[in-house]
């Protein structure tokens, strides 16, 4: 196991684990948990090692199977990719602890199938953050999506229909992306990102290149549920089994945003006229602002905690897309930071949702009454995540919002700045509404009046609490570590020209 191969092992172990779970899990249900946890712990450790290597020794490019680029497949292990790999593997490991418990409750004898898909999805995400080939992005994106379709379909109620709608929308997005790649290939004759980046500036053909760019970007927007291409997300994410939601909700949209950053700045460059075009910037950032406002407003209309969160994911996508398209250092720093932070926040929120669901059953606001007494730890973690979503220091949400606001001010995008502040206020309203219900109303209010009598504490199982507390702690730790994170990682992750 040479040290330069570690990132490959981080990618490959979930894939191998997926088959192991498939085969062994069929015979013994008890084989599932050790395999999943073992594989993901290894993957996380490997990703972390690679990340530390990259921090000390700088990024490198890796050629798979000795077929030299641009013909062979290349992986790029740089600061940004490596950071994302740590994020993906860390979130996956944390989520899986909780998922093992909730899936054991939800899908008794189909656990091994669930975790087969689960691990392939993780392998796909690992691939996405490392690949340096534009076509591979398409393939890996579909691997991640197809497994996600399957995971969603395992959910409750109308999950199958939501999953089918997601198939249609997701495939449309993938087709758009593939179409764009087709244009790029016809124009340049290569699919390697570095090669593309070398050739594109020499091209003359404006409209064709712009078409390629727009097709790819729109395709990615559909995949990440950027407003107004978001309609598939709320149903799909709220009908998923909780075990899948804790993985998919934090990672899928965030990784797609990472891909957009890669596409815009590793294939194209910040100097590309379409990105620099003031009108285009105005429109995209304006759309992001509109998306933030609309998604926040729609979240206000929800009566179910899980559904409310899905709309918040859409709002957060607006944060990041807007931040990237501000096209200045602060904005892009904020967007990258927010990818990390939002992944952690969403993880914490969905872990809390999963824990609440395991005890309270339903998640509509009425069934949250009196939860502070019954599940104090879970609610405390939910409050931390809520503070981060609102943007209260020292939680990490504050700092990425800070950079995004700075970027917005620098670019003079006042609409976007206003939308960010509006969304903070709406988040405050949303979460305090939930907290108020959980804090004030006791479940048997009708029978006992105001009811201060002791309600027994009935916390979620430890396997769900531990990851939740870890995620909540991570929100504060990452918040306090923002300085070093920006200085030692994200500064290097910014593409040349920034």
């Amino acid at each position, binding site marked *: 196991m040479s040290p330069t191969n570690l990132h490959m092992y981080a990618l490959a172990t979930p894939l191998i684990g997926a088959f192991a779970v498939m085969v062994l899990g069929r015979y013994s249900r008890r084989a599932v948990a050790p395999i999943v946890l073992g594989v993901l712990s290894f993957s996380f450790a490997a990703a972390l090692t690679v990340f530390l290597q990259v921090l000390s020794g700088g990024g490198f490019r890796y050629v798979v199977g000795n077929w030299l680029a641009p013909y062979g497949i290349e992986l790029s292990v740089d600061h940004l990719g490596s950071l994302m790999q740590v994020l993906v593997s860390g979130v996956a490991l944390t989520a899986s602890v909780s998922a093992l418990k909730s899936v054991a409750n939800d899908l008794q004898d189909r656990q091994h199938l669930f975790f087969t898909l689960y691990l392939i999805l993780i392998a796909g995400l690992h691939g996405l953050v490392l690949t340096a080939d534009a076509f591979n992005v398409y393939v890996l994106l579909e691997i991640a999506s197809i497994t996600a379709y399957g995971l969603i379909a395992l959910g409750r109620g109308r999950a199958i229909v939501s999953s089918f709608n997601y198939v249609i929308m997701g495939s449309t997005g993938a087709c758009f992306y593939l179409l764009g790649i087709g244009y790029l290939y016809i124009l340049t004759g290569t699919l390697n990102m570095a090669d593309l980046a070398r050739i594109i500036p020499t091209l003359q053909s404006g409209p064709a290149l712009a078409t390629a760019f727009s097709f790819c970007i729109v395709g990615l927007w559909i995949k990440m549920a950027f407003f107004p291409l978001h309609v598939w997300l709320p149903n799909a994410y709220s009908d998923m089994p909780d075990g899948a939601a804790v993985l998919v909700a934090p990672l899928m949209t965030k990784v797609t945003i990472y891909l957009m950053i890669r596409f815009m700045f590793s294939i194209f460059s910040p100097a590309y006229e379409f990105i620099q075009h003031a009108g285009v910037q105005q429109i995209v950032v304006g759309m992001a602002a509109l998306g933030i406002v609309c998604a926040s407003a729609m979240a206000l209309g929800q009566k179910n905690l899980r559904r409310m969160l899905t709309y918040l994911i859409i709002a957060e996508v607006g944060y990041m897309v807007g931040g990237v398209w501000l096209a200045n250092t602060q904005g892009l720093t904020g967007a990258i930071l927010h990818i990390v932070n939002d992944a952690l926040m969403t993880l914490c929120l969905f872990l809390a949702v999963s824990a609440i669901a395991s005890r309270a059953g339903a998640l509509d606001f009425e069934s949250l009454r009196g939860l502070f007494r019954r599940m104090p730890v879970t609610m405390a973690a939910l409050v931390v995540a809520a*503070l981060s979503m609102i943007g209260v220091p020292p939680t990490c949400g504050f700092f990425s919002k800070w950079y995004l606001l700075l970027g917005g001010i620098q670019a003079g995008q006042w609409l976007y700045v206003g939308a960010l502040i509006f969304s903070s206020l709406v988040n405050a309203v949303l979460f305090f509404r939930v907290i108020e219900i959980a804090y004030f109303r006791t479940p048997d209010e009708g029978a006992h009046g105001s009811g201060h009598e002791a309600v027994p504490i009935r916390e979620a199982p430890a396997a769900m609490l531990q990851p939740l507390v870890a995620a909540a702690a991570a929100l504060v730790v990452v918040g306090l570590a923002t*300085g070093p994170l920006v*200085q030692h990682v994200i500064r290097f992750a910014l593409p040349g020209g920034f």
Partner: protein
Amino acid sequence: MNLQPSTWPLAAVLISLLGTVPILLSERRPNLRETWTVLISLGKFAIIASMLPAVLEGGGYRFTLAEVLPGVAIALRVDAMGMYFALVASFLWILTSIYSIGYMRALDEHDQTRYYASFAVAMSATIGVAFSANLLTLYLFYEMLSLSTYPLVTHKQDAEARSAGRKYLTYLLGTSVALTLPAMILIYVLTGTLDFSVGGILAGKADASTVSILLVLLVFGFAKAAVMPLHGWLPAAMVAPTPVSSFLHGVAVVKVGVFSILRMVFFIFGTGLLADLNLGAVLTALASVTILGASLVALTQDNLKRRLAYSTISQLSYMILGAGMLTTAGMAGGLLHLSMHAFGKITLFLCAGAIYIAAHKSNISEMDGLGRRMPVTYAAFFMASLSIIGMPPMGGFLSKWSLVVGAIDGGQLLLVAVVLVSSLLSAAYFFPIVYRGFFARAAGENGPEEIREAPILCLIPLSVTALFCLGLFLWPSLALQLIQMVVSP
């Protein structure tokens, strides 16, 4: 100023935050829990007091936790202004803790553990604000204070508490996110730093209109200072148990708001800049309106705690008024009023609580004749109201005197009139209470015969604070020395 690196500021902030752990763990043993609370409050005061000599020598301490943004760290520093506020707050916390024990046990309140734990967190946040080295750290602790006091405000957990809690967070969180945060970012964009430094950081970095926008954003953004029209949360918060109202909404929370605004005036804007741009008038105008408006509303309130709340709103603006005068005497008066009002108002609230425990009455119109049954409480109430009105021989006289001198120095005779008129108004809303207590006859057969004084644990703190109102008039040197270091560095 020579600030030594030290972990003492951190210890001063953290002791009560970490203190929540033993408090929560001893939930089933109330005596142990209350012992912890008192010990922690004593420890906190001791740590803060131990840093006093260095501050008096013109030095201080600093502590940097982490640099989170380029040029901005989460950092603490102990200087004269922070020390002044921290001393007052931590000293009064000891008394409030003792009083809380008496009050909560006398009323047999529910969820006492949560109460003491939240109180300790709130105290950490208060000292954190006092010792913040920059605007970001201050904002952090400011928000922490808003959130940690929410369970205290809504302690009763009934419908009234719920709507009060809603109002509380809407005002405090809403303004800080919508006004303070943008102002903070704007300052960062303009100057590249958020550090508090003597003489301000904005001079030469921003034009007059930007500075005035920032000033308005920050005065209203720190809504804890309850400058009208953002004062509505304070009367609503009076549904909280009385020790909370007395300490948090007479001292800690509201003074944190004022303290933050004063920090901005002295260390972000700089009094020189405000004087050059003639912006002191913005502060004095807003403050004057609040002083007079709130005094008038206080006259109409029958609920004792609500009357005190409006009185607080009015008195808080004295401090902003003093800062807005931009004269040495005026600023000193404003700062001095911070401690004078703290001791006076906490006494009044503690008395209100004692009356509630002893007689279960909260409306002034029902309090006829109570003074003869509760002479200690009413005597303390009388002394404290004299201090708030500003009559010698009480501490409040010194601060009002200094304010009047400051106004005359600055040639702002209108402000002299504001101070005098509002003093008359405060006399008009305090004296009837005392008069009714001692001289009015109770109507009906349900006379106050069976009413006795509140428990001894309640009486001691309020007597101590009342005596301090007197003591601060006779020996104000420590406060004056610290204030002098702030206003003429």
